[in-house]
């Protein structure tokens, strides 16, 4: 589940890619292009970080929401370009990651592919290796996590593995840097020799016969898709829709023949051909793995004991709750603390409250500066600590345990266990939360999660609730608002599910062994994430805040506010200036509060009744996502979806706020 957010350099990448299909993202000429491939969570990113150091960029694959991490390595005078392919289990077309990886290998022809394996789950990893070998690319295998395998009682003979596969194999422990020098040396050697494993690993009897038949036929039809014909033959037999389409456009006869052969196989086994091939490939992987590993004495390790508790039917809920709470407390307590320090430090230079009068330039400057402070007080105190903690929870494998325990609850709003993570993030800040919906499989699920997130009380909204209601009404009303918000999330989640019906993806998730993540990976991940967020959020904060304050001074907001009066005064029963508060609050929710203070002074109770406090807090909490949230919604889901979500927010806010105003005024 190691996911990095996409970066702002996306467009730059697209440019470089469209101008030259080969990798020349770096200005220096590259002698060798090396790709890292393998299952998820095998330590690829650790190796990538070790090899590239600080010289790396995380972008996006053109047109896809899949991260593309690449970097450079200077090794003995050679400039090596390294690309970290997403972690996948197979080369089918059921996920973007798989398509991106196989097309990269076929069309961009890396000089060598390093296939990283998890030594503790050798058989499953070899399933992928075999597919990679079928693609006939020059490759080297790094058997990583040898230490964890040993802890689990597997002793792996890499020499035997090398003999069985016919590909150089290097044992590594990436977290300690062991074996990586040797791995890169072998990789360079292979890339220079352009050595493609000559003898493909053969399947059993009739399957192999059928593959060969089809391969020969494809050759006789002169089919060349950029992939090896053996691989194409296997994919055709596996009924791969993409390859089917490509071959069909070249030779319909080939498709007919492959259908015929597939049927022949299906007749023998009484199973669909894709199932036969998967079974055969696993049988092969099993044989190779069994030949190369030996069971040895082992003790049940600490991580296994811990695991027993983490997913225990009873204790598991406590530990899951602890993880979630820990993340929230860590972010809030630490965040608030640092946020205050920064705000104080900045106000030393310049007042951070919105300026509502004065010369235009001064107002612009004040607005821009206020935006900068807003950005700083969001990113530095809340986002960075949050990302660090999140990275830990992700990389250690803790997150999979929490998702495991929480799956049944999340299913109620059409999402599976993994969607809990973005939702928790939403309590901190919606922007990284929406960014992290990438871990979900389908766009529909990402959208559902993002929608729920926009209702979650982020730190800014919490501040509004606390300072308006808790201080001027009572702490119990503030808590009630929090509870109401959770109910609203649930109800809206249900409604969204009704509006976007469809099959919800069930959970299929590998629970890799728990481990202490390497801090260099954590820091680099945090850095990359923060960087991409900063690029996006800062300009919006600075420009948005300046423009809105300017509008106010120029008197543009006044008429809008008056125009909104029937709604704000009539329906919501708020003072007339509330319209301005809400417009200003779109930039950043705290501005609602700051502007209010600049209007009426610090004793807000003089201007508002308790009901008005509650209604204003409610509206502020729900009414529209802030500018940076809207912009990430647009980036991830497009303008249309972003507007629908914003509109849904606004309508909910007005409905709930109005009802609250009318009902509460009867009691209070």
């Amino acid at each position, binding site marked *: 589940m190691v996911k990095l957010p996409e970066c702002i350099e996306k467009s730059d990448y697209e440019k470089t890619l469209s101008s030259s299909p080969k990798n020349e993202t770096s200005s220096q000429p590259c002698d060798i292009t090396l790709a890292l491939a393998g299952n998820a969570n095998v330590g690829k990113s650790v190796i990538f970080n070790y090899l590239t150091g600080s010289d790396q960029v995380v972008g996006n694959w053109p047109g896809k929401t899949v991260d593309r991490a690449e970097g450079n390595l200077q090794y003995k005078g050679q400039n090596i370009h390294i690309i970290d392919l997403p972690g996948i289990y197979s080369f089918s077309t059921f996920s973007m990651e798989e398509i991106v990886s196989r097309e990269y290998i076929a069309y961009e022809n890396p000089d060598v592919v390093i296939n990283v394996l998890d030594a503790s789950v050798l058989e499953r990893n070899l399933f992928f290796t075999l597919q990679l070998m079928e693609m006939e690319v020059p490759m080297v295998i790094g058997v990583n996590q040898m230490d964890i395998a040993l802890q689990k009682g597997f002793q792996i003979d890499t020499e035997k593995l090398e003999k069985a596969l016919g590909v150089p194999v290097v044992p590594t422990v990436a977290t300690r840097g062991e074996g990586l020098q040797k791995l890169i040396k072998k990789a360079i050697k292979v890339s220079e020799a352009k050595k493609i494993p000559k003898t493909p690993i053969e399947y059993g009897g009739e399957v192999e016969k059928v593959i060969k038949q089809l391969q020969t036929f494809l050759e006789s039809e002169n089919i060349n898709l950029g992939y090896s014909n053996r691989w194409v033959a296997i994919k055709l037999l596996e009924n791969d*829709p993409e390859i089917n389409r490509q071959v069909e456009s070249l030779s319909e006869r080939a498709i007919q023949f492959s*259908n*015929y052969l597939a049927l022949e196989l299906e007749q023998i086994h009484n199973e669909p051909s894709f199932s036969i091939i998967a079974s055969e490939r696993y049988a092969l992987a099993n044989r190779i793995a069994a030949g190369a590993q030996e069971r040895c004495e082992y003790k049940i390790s600490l991580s296994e004991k811990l695991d027993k508790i983490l997913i225990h039917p009873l204790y598991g809920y406590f530990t899951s709750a602890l993880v979630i709470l820990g993340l929230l407390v860590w972010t809030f307590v630490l965040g608030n603390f640092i946020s205050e320090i920064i705000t104080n430090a900045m106000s030393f230079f310049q007042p951070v409250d919105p300026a509502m009068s004065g010369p235009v330039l001064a107002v612009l400057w004040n607005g821009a500066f206020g935006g900068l402070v807003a950005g700083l007080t969001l990113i530095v105190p809340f986002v960075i600590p949050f990302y660090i903690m999140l990275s830990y929870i992700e990389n250690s494998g803790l997150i999979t345990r929490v998702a495991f325990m929480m799956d049944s609850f999340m299913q109620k709003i059409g999402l599976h266990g993994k969607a809990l993570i973005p939702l928790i993030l939403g309590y901190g800040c919606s922007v990284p939360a929406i960014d992290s919906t990438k871990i979900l499989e389908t766009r529909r699920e990402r959208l559902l999660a993002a929608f729920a997130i926009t209702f979650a009380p982020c730190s800014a909204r919490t501040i509004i609730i606390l300072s308006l209601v808790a201080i001027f009404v009572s702490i119990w009303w503030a808590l009630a608002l929090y509870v109401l918000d959770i109910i609203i999330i649930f109800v809206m989640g249900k409604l969204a599910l009704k509006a976007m019906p469809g099959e919800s993806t069930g959970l299929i998730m590998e629970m890799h062994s728990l481990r202490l993540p390497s801090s260099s990976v954590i820091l680099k991940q945090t850095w990359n994430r923060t960087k991409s967020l900063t690029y996006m959020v800062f300009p919006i904060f600075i420009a948005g805040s300046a423009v809105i304050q300017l509008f106010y001074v120029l008197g543009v907001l006044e008429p809008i506010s008056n125009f909104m009066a029937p709604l704000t005064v009539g329906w919501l029963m708020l003072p007339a200036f509330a319209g301005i508060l809400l417009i200003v609050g779109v930039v950043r929710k705290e501005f609602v509060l700051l502007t209010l203070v600049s209007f009426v002074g610090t004793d807000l109770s003089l201007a508002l009744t308790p009901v008005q406090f509650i209604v204003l807090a409610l509206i502020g909490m729900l009414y529209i996502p802030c500018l940076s949230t809207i912009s990430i919604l647009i980036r991830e889901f497009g303008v249309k979806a972003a507007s629908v979500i914003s509109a849904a927010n606004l309508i909910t806010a007005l409905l709930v706020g109005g009802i609250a105003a009318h009902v509460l005024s009867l009691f209070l």
Partner: protein
Amino acid sequence: MSSEKILSESTEEYLEVLYKLSLKERPVKTTNISSMLNISPASVTQMIKKLEKEGYVHYSPYKGVTLTEEGYKVASNITRKHRLLERFLHDVLKIKKEKVHDQACEMEHSLSDDAERALCHLLKNPDECPDDEELIPVCDFKFETCEECHKRRQEEVNEVGKRDKNLVSITDMKKNEKGKVSFIRGDYKVIRRLMDMGITMGAQVSVLEVAPFKGPVELLVRGSHLALGRDIAKNVFVEIIRETTSRSGGAVSYG
């Protein structure tokens, strides 16, 4: 599937001939059968009596033979396969017209229904067979149109394996019990993903943990720990492997 009852090749051959002849005359005279199959009338009568016992035909001496409903079903199915095969041999493999009949006769008996369906797709739903331009009987699949049938072949396989009575869903497995995956049903993509993750036919799995409140199930398969949501897990069926000797006591049998 008609393969539940395995019919002998000669039974199928007789039914096929009866199908063809009964288009012209009903009941069919045994002498016509014997001349068509080139077999003595005596052995034809003997075989017909056997078929009658099995419920495929009605036979009244001196009048002739008529197909029962069941017999007609089998007969049209085998005829369909025969004629589709002829088309295939002729159109795709370019075998001469004169030779396709004998070849098809050999192949028709071992052609599965799935294969028949795919053949029909491959040949783009043909109407006639090549040698004597006779009509190909319609298929007995439950599809409204050929188009619908096509789509299903391309996209969805919603079941793999055969569901036997002795199979247990993995959600019903006890902890540390071992089972052999024998039947999976559900969304096509999910089935493909499961197979990529190692849950293939015949793979050995055991349950490590089950989350309460209908939560997911944690499995051990091919050395890896896999969590499956309940809705997916309940559609994976296994044959329980009874361990005769439990040497290791179960506790250390995974890792």
